[in-house]
């Protein structure tokens, strides 16, 4: 279980796909936020976060999602979260999303094409 987070970025059909590997905790939260900020400043309009290889995600990871959604702007939280989709979270991450009510705001997919098609 590594303590660092690796983030690989690809552009697919105009969407930024971030493939995360490692934990998203209070130690790595900023790494994710900074990468998202860099992409949004570079013109990214929509983002898929592939969580397949995320070993752990707690409240710090969800705060990062909230902050990234806020970077996109929008009249309300639903409009902001519309720019971010999640792919392949583990059952543990899904439970955390549900416990903190994020499942009401952010869409979760098991298929990349479906996630991209949902924007």
């Amino acid at each position, binding site marked *: *279980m*590594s*303590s660092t987070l690796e983030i690989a970025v690809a552009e697919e059909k105009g969407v930024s796909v971030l493939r995360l590997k490692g*934990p998203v905790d*209070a130690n790595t939260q900023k790494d994710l936020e900074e990468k998202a900020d860099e992409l949004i400043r570079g013109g990214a309009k929509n983002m898929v976060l592939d969580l397949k290889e995320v070993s752990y995600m707690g409240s*710090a990871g969800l705060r990062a999602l*909230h902050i990234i959604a806020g970077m996109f702007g929008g009249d*309300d*939280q639903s409009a902001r979260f519309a720019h971010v989709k999640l792919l392949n979270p583990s059952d543990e991450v899904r439970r955390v999303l549900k416990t*903190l009510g994020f499942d009401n705001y952010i869409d979760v997919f098991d298929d990349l094409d479906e996630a991209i098609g949902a924007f």
Partner: protein
Amino acid sequence: MGGKHTLVTDVALDKLAEVRRFVESSARSLGVNETAVSDLVLAVDEAVTNIIVHGYKHQPGSVEVSIDADGTALIVRLRDKAPGFDPCSYPKLNLRSSLEKDTPGGFGLHLINKAVDDISYRIPHAGGNELTLVKQNVVPSR
């Protein structure tokens, strides 16, 4: 199976992965099922993060994490020497209104409360803080 497990580590955010590994291996060695192991890892990660960020305020220090069984309950005790920090004194989180804020807070404590059955705080005679987390009915009867 059995026996108390103890880890003492410096308080630094890059030590969180080590703490999570310790909780995972200790709980598994006591026979705890995987769903409950995940809950315990989550609760301890959030509690130690709070100790680092709100207790020590990122200043140097240490935290002791001890894990033991009490019957079928699993008991986690976190002891540190930070200035007094009682997470139990914080009001319950209103999730929807918090999520509508630009800078939401209180997520960590909410997760701890959902992941374990009981959370209690006391100031030991020697000073510092002691936080106890209890998860019931997760250790197989011997």
